[in-house]
């Protein structure tokens, strides 16, 4: 974990609610925490360059835009190949998350997770098949887990504890 200053943390918390829709949004943000507009911009640029902020821009709602199916594809990739495969898998445009995670033998043999979005279930499965064929993983053990019931969804945002797209967590 990178050491992040109090000022940067405050700014990150603040920006979790989104950039104000005002002519000078960085000035509006700064005025809430007594920070000059130029300093807000400068700090955001450094957080982006330093990799703390991975992406800064419009966050779209996949579901509302018709991408209603999401499948968590999981793969048992030999350890020696997992980084190479992961880096390639993370580049498919319909993959929105791609992580190596630990196996838990024998019940959970998979070590690579890639979230695949699509307009429908069969589209997601087709895309997973394409990934397998493109990366020569057809002989690798894999599965796709679709979500069924949603019990809680807070628009999980790292570093945005308790801030929830301006709405409370949805619970079933």
């Amino acid at each position: 974990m990178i050491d992040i200053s109090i000022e940067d943390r405050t700014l990150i918390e603040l920006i979790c609610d989104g950039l104000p829709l005002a002519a000078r949004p960085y000035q509006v943000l700064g005025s809430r925490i007594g920070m000059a507009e130029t300093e807000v911009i400068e700090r955001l640029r450094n957080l982006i360059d330093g990799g703390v902020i991975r992406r800064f821009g419009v966050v779209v709602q996949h579901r509302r835009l018709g991408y209603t199916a999401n499948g968590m594809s999981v793969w048992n990739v030999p350890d020696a190949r997992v980084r190479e495969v992961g880096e390639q898998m993370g580049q498919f445009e319909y993959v929105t998350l791609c992580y190596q995670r630990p196996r838990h033998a024998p019940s959970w043999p998979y070590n690579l997770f890639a979230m695949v979005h699509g307009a429908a279930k069969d589209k997601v499965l087709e895309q997973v098949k394409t990934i397998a064929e493109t990366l020569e993983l057809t002989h690798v053990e894999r599965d796709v887990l679709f979500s069924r019931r949603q019990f809680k969804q807070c628009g999980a945002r790292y570093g945005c504890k308790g801030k929830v797209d301006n709405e409370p967590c949805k619970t079933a």
Partner: protein
Amino acid sequence: MDDTDKSLLNDFQRNFPLVARPYAEIGARLSMSEDEVIEAYANLAEQKYISRIGAVIAPNQVGASTLAAMRVPEDRLAEVAEFVTSFSQVNHNYEREHDINLWFVVAADDVLEVGEVLSRIEAETDLEVLNLPIIEDYHLDLGFKLEWA
């Protein structure tokens, strides 16, 4: 949705202008006024096509988090899910189609607090919790390319 809306959605998912008047800069690129850009984004937000304009923070840069999973007998699923959901540190909790059927994300100030939540869930439910923290992140997050039929 017109072409302008599509550009506003697709083209500014990253590298959002870090200048004093970002909406004016976007307007200049799309031949719109600053006010028109602001109004268009307000409409897209109103219609819930966007959740916000903002920062996506890299995982585990601020605080700690993990993905956890449990194999819950069908007749206990509702009760166990409700218990898991009751923790403020749990921000996602889904049933997935698999015999390991309950999947949730725990995010807290540090790894210790994450561990405490998982331990309490195991102790209270008497079920194993698989702890699946990120070992390595391979996705660069360049935004999501939207396609319109």
